[in-house]
């Protein structure tokens, strides 16, 4: 039956040759290669749960009075957007699970994307011929961060209103264009009525389309250029070693899809996220009367918030023209940071003068300077992320937020310097050592001789420990 269907199809379209090649395709196996797959599967979860949410969500700031089943808010005036989000959480069966699954999927989507980026960076997978895919991946990251922010801004709760207010002020801070840009983006002076419907269109149509198209291009390039692989016995720059797509690799990847979905469903059902009914509604004007304590954005925005907090109160003003305070930490700094990230493959090629194609991956120790730079970036990111929650940390440690801020202002320079030096040093040390620092126990073969005695036979050089990337002779168990 299946074969007849396939024949019917092939008669009209052709493609048996392509299908054969696809099924026989070889994929190198390493646990870290699944990170990109996790990103893809989170995106599928986002589309499925997000589509469901659109059936119930009402992107409107029309004023309504809540009369739903959540007692503490009954009789409270709020926007239709916030009420529909409450209704999804309390009135629609499985609605809360879907909403929380959507939020968790977004968090894991960006987390796995970031770790995937780290894997690609530290292994040098972006080197020729894959610079193009690095650029696509970076754009995916930017688009996904933007869409995540838009997503949690839609609910019109007090927390998201605060986030929007900050976004508005950052837009406003751009010299010359700021006021017009901010009014154009938000539809007027904050809090303009246009925000929610506009951001909704961007969140459910424009950016998902961009992300889907980029994901397709990203995967098409992986398909065309074939995956990179780690060095190992029989692995060269010219070949690809692994297992065939069909059936084992496909079964494993589909299994991973179900596992990712399972984790997201478990989080969505069991781990509360963004409880908007606790925050209360954001109502234009009146929202400012609510005393908001510790307000934190989603994790992927935390570093920007941290930069805003650590930046000193400078605001140079000449003849009435100001360089608004948020402009440098919230526009220039992320702009420069992402530009450098975009350009990294080309910068590295220029500095190392290595423009050859690479299909074999580095390990961190094979490129100590690169590893050091990566560690420094991670350190800056980490300090800024911590600074983004300095009020919570200070509260937990029972110290003044002021002293923590001062500490972070020092750390944001000190930590990357230390991380760079330390990582580079460790990588250089490791590079001088045998291929695998932990290669299992030393083994010896003991042979009984014809006379009944025992003799130790010297082990031949272990093939599995040999690597083309290291000149040192392999030995076992040394560290």
């Amino acid at each position, binding site marked *: 039956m299946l074969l007849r269907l396939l024949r019917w199809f092939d008669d009209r379209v052709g493609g048996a040759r392509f299908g054969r090649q696809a099924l026989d*395709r070889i994929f190198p196996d390493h646990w870290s290669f699944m990170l990109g797959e996790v990103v893809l599967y989170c995106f599928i979860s986002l589309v499925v749960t997000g589509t469901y949410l659109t059936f119930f969500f009402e992107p409107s700031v029309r004023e309504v009075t809540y009369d739903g089943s959540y007692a503490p808010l009954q009789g409270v005036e709020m926007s239709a957007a916030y009420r529909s989000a409450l209704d999804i959480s309390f009135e629609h*069966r*499985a609605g*809360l*699970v879907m909403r929380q699954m959507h939020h968790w999927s977004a968090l894991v989507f960006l987390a796995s994307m970031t770790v995937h980026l780290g894997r690609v960076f530290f292994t040098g997978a972006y080197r020729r011929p894959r610079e193009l895919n690095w650029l696509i991946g970076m754009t995916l990251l930017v688009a996904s961060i933007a869409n995540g922010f838009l997503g949690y801004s839609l609910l019109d709760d007090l927390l998201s209103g*605060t986030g929007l207010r*900050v976004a508005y*002020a*950052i837009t*406003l801070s751009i010299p010359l264009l700021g*006021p017009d840009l901010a*009014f*154009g*983006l938000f*539809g*007027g*002076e904050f809090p303009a009525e*246009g925000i929610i419907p506009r951001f909704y269109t961007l969140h459910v149509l424009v950016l998902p389309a961009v992300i889907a198209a980029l994901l397709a291009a990203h995967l098409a390039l992986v398909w*065309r*250029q074939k995956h990179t692989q780690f060095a190992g016995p*029989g692995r060269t720059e*010219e*070949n690809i070693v*692994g297992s*065939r797509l069909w059936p*084992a690799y496909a*079964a*494993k990847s589909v*299994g*991973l*899809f*179900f*596992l990712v*979905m*399972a984790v997201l*469903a478990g989080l969505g*059902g069991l781990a509360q996220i963004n409880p908007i009914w606790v925050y209360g509604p954001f109502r*234009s*004007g*009146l929202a*400012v009367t609510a*005393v908001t*304590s*510790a*307000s934190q954005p989603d994790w992927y925005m935390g570093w920007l918030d941290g930069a*805003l*907090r650590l930046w000193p*109160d*400078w*605001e140079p*003003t000449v*003849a009435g*023209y*100001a360089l*608004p*305070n*948020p402009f440098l930490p*919230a526009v220039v700094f992320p702009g420069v940071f992402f530009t450098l990230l975009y350009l990294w493959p080309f910068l590295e090629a220029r500095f190392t003068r290595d423009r050859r194609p690479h299909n074999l991956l580095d390990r961190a120790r094979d490129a100590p300077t690169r590893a050091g730079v990566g560690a420094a970036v991670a350190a800056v990111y980490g300090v800024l992320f911590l600074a983004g929650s300095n*009020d919570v940390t200070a509260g937990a440690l029972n110290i003044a937020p*002021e002293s923590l801020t001062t500490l972070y202002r020092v750390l944001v320079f000190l930590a990357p310097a230390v991380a760079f030096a330390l990582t580079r040093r460790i990588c250089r040390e490791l590079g001088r050592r045998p291929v695998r620092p932990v290669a299992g126990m030393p083994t010896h073969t003991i042979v009984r001789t014809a006379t009944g005695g025992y003799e130790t036979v010297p082990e031949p050089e272990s093939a599995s420990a040999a690597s083309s990337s290291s000149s040192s002779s392999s030995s076992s168990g040394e560290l």
Partner: protein
Amino acid sequence: MISYRGIGVAFAASGLAGLGLAVVYILGGQPQWEGALLMVALGGIGLGLIGWAKQLYGDSEETDERPVLPSAYEPRIDFRQSLERSEVFSRRRGLTGLLAFAGGSLALAALFPLRSLGPSPGGALRRTAWRRGSRLVTEGGQALRADSLNRGGIVTVFPEGTEAHEDAATVVISVDPTLLADGTNADWVVDGNIAYSKICTHVGCPVGLYRESEHSLLCPCHQSTFDVLDGARVVFGPAPRPLPQLPLGVDEEGYLIALGDYPEPVGPTFWNRGR
């Protein structure tokens, strides 16, 4: 490695969880059960498939050649020759010039709707709804008198009749007038009632936390701290300017009123704020 029996158990658990999900749903739904059962239903399939795949893998790795990515010399030349058929266009320079003109002005025209996305800021960023004589009313609509607040008290007010105007949000704090420092305009203080814009000069969060013992206002977003006694001078944090002070007075009926709008734009800085 999961045995074939284990794979079977995983699939069976998944099937049962799926049925359980239907039962929970019919009974009215319950988020924790839904999440847990969905997790088992999905996870059973996932674990089973991965277990099965590992059984199938065995030890053998297979090897293929990688394709040479760059095209050979011949196809590149052929492509270039095909591409150069575009000479038919460049032979008619006048026409291509006009086409470029048409495309360019169309692109320019496509930019015009961008202007419609929002009103021109004009003076909107420099004004609030406060007028000379506006009474100070709370969220509940109550007008404030000079003795409405106890010493150390704080309340958020709006100009009467315009409670929805975000940028007009103002905090009134009652302090001991003898403590006031030079930064404060004492003419605008009525019986120790002092009013500041509630919109933080950093990125516009509501400055909502008042530490009475230190007489300081704290922004919950980025911890900018303002000294209430000294013209809301910035004591700590990234805010670049003090909070503007609202000129306060009293009308003939004894209610607190504004003597006019804020003397300077409230909220975060924009580039030509000082002009």
